[in-house]
């Protein structure tokens, strides 16, 4: 059996980059078919194939690491760089929406009444559900840190409990935000206020859902004994992403909900 003389990971040929790229084509052309030709077939196929690709690709990463041992210290270092760079790219993504918000709100045009919030817009009270949501995400930051420390100390039961609490708080945030969306007195088409509000908070909500899904996967992996007390990068990556989601909310809360009201 051939053995490598280096610590790097030479992966097996994989079909998932191809299926991922093709499913991106199906998603985008699916949107076109939905918007312009009233057909959802392509979009549904696209959603299905992108979910299948993600499931199998990440399943393979777990196999390569936990079951085949390919994630040496060097490989892990590369993965850390990768996750940090990815989160940095997401920071720039949100920066754009914050730019749009500040561009419009710092110098409101005469068409808006020369004021912010614009004339006719009744903003949400920052001291009600938005403040509760802030405390929920802050608390989830504490619980995920507890989960990490429990994991490092080898306390399986506490790790599962703390991670469960973190996920529950994330789900609670999502449900509260969904009800806020449903009951809001303004919509996305209510001028630039509505656009900036829903684009910024909407993409944030999507990231909460992505982060919660990542944490749920970590919970299942912890149940299956995949993590050890000194090797659990998947969990660390999920925790970094979760803290990023929390920070974006804090910025949203201070800028749009508080200063913007």
């Amino acid at each position, binding site marked *: 059996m051939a053995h490598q003389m280096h610590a790097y990971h030479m992966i097996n040929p994989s079909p998932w980059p191809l299926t991922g790229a093709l499913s991106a084509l199906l998603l985008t052309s699916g949107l076109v078919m939905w918007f312009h030709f009233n057909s959802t077939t392509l979009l549904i196929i*696209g959603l299905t194939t992108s979910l299948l690709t993600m499931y199998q690709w990440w399943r*393979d990463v777990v*196999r390569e690491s936990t079951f085949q041992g390919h994630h040496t210290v060097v490989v892990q270092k590369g993965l850390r760089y990768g996750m940090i760079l990815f989160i940095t790219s997401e920071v720039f993504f949100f920066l754009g929406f914050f730019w749009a918000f500040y561009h419009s709100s710092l110098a409101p045009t005469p068409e808006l009444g020369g004021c912010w919030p614009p004339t006719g817009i009744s903003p949400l009270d920052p001291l009600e559900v938005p403040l509760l949501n802030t405390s929920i995400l802050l608390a989830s930051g504490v619980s995920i840190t507890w989960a990490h420390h429990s994991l490092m100390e080898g306390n399986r039961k506490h790790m599962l409990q703390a991670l469960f609490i973190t996920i529950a708080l994330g789900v609670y945030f999502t449900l509260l935000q969904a009800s806020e969306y449903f009951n809001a007195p303004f919509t996305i088409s209510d001028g630039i206020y509505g656009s900036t509000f829903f684009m910024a908070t909407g993409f944030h909500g999507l990231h909460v859902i992505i982060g919660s899904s990542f944490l749920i996967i970590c919970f299942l992996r912890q149940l*299956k004994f995949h993590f050890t007390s000194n090797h659990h990068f998947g969990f660390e990556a999920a925790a970094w992403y979760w803290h990023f989601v929390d920070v974006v909310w804090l910025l949203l809360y201070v800028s749009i909900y508080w200063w913007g009201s």
Partner: protein
Amino acid sequence: MLRNLLALRQIAGRTISTASRRQFENKVAEKQKLFQEDNGIPVHLKGGIADALLYRATMVLTVGGTMYALYQLAMASFPKKQD
């Protein structure tokens, strides 16, 4: 009645713990053996027949979907004239 209640509690405890014990046992070593077998099978198919089925289904949907997308593109590029 209290004695019966205590007996029931003991039995229930025993049944649940035996049933769930297999579910939460550490099976990583078995998986490591399966995925480190020197059989030349790539990692995305190494888990067994379910891998092959899922791979085939994904390929059929993506390639088929791509052909469908290209067909729709062709149809949209040449709109039917209204009489």
